[in-house]
């Protein structure tokens, strides 16, 4: 673990009255990378982001954001973060230029020229009240409020939410621009796996409050393998810890592994005494769905 982690969560648990928020979550995000949290609704993604932002207190465990406790050093930390919430509502009676003045008073490093250059590129009308803009345009204003001051950390909750494909692409381009400038680390949550694949270097897969897999995007992609197997029951197939999911496929069993394909075959043939009929690499979305459906 690097001591310079931009985000470090150690054994963090936060329970709500309504149920689990996050349980025993560890997360380390290195500078300059983009880490994506994926998982179904209620997996704990937003809770994790809110803990990182210092908007929630952990019941136990420790949260360090930019090396500090984000609740104790709330102002210093927040000045260096950009945040776009999933449900962020913008004041409809204000214009982007009013928002820019507001952001300018919030962030010491706000750069008005840069804000106007971005707005120009995005063709955002600075003088129109936001009530008369599209949802996508309002989100762009929110994004500018999060990136123009060159934050050390950019936190995005469901950045694809409610955007059409063109707006989504523009939004991604802005994030890539920021990553390309260097100096900014990104933590995002998303249901949109295409977007995750384009943006993330690191993917943490959450389910029911736990991080069940946390790997580089390439490792996650290359370690996800599915074998179609004969001579093994589904219950047997679910035994080995490398098996993330197993489901029936006629009289065969489809086993989803997270491991080296050669190791996966070895487990089936040597440990379980089965026979491999077919092997395939899994696309991220297939892997995701398989793991959720075949959850042990």
């Amino acid at each position: 673990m690097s001591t310079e982690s931009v985000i470090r969560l150690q054994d963090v648990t936060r329970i709500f009255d309504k149920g689990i928020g996050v349980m025993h979550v560890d997360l380390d995000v290195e500078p300059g990378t983009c880490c994506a949290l994926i998982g179904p609704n209620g997996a704990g993604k937003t809770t994790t982001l809110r803990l990182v932002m210092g908007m929630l207190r952990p019941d136990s465990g420790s949260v360090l954001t930019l090396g500090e406790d984000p609740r104790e050093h709330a102002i210093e930390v927040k000045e260096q973060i950009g945040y776009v919430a999933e449900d962020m509502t913008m004041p409809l009676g204000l214009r982007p230029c009013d928002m820019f003045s507001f952001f300018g008073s919030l962030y010491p490093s706000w750069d008005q020229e840069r804000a106007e250059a971005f707005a120009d590129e995005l063709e955002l009308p600075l003088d129109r009240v936001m009530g008369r803009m599209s949802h996508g345009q309002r989100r762009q204003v929110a994004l500018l409020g999060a990136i123009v001051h060159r934050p050390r950390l950019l936190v995005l909750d469901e950045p694809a939410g409610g955007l059409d494909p063109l707006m989504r692409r523009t939004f991604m381009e802005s994030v890539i621009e920021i990553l390309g400038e260097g100096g900014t680390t990104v933590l995002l949550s998303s249901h949109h796996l295409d977007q995750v694949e384009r943006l993330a270097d690191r993917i943490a897969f959450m389910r029911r409050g736990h991080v069940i897999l946390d790997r580089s995007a390439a490792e996650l992609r290359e370690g996800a393998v599915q074998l179609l197997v004969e001579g093994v029951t589904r219950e047997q197939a679910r035994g080995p810890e490398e098996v993330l999911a197993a489901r029936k496929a006629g009289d065969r069993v489809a086993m989803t592994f997270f491991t080296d394909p050669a190791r996966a075959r070895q487990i089936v043939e040597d440990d379980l005494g089965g026979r491999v009929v077919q092997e395939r690499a899994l696309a991220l979305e297939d892997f995701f769905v398989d793991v959720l459906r075949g959850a042990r």
Partner: protein
Amino acid sequence: MVSKFLISVAPGDALPIYRQIVEQVKAAIASGVLSDGDQLPSHRDLARDVVVAPLTVKRAYDVLEQEGMVLTRRGTGTFVQAPGTDARENADEELDARIRAVIRHARALDLGERELARRLRELWREAKERGGR
């Protein structure tokens, strides 16, 4: 710098994105779209171009460098390396392997050499008419 070749990635593919970039750069070198000494776009420019994280491009370039296809000179950029006799040979071998697979397929369908050759000529002509070379 604008890339000298077209490249696009498909998220959702079984091949990770950095691998897709590696394969497309290799294909561009093998087919002569990129030749010895050509400069590749910077991580940042290619990232912007194909809309992926800059570190993904870096990873792809690192693999290409390990495989001897490109050379990164500090401060100047990444360049296609050597006339790529290796690359050309590999490409030839790959083509042979694919043709062999087609022959096996044809045999399995009980097609003779003449019939296969006839179909090849026909499809070649078709491809040419569609604007290929």
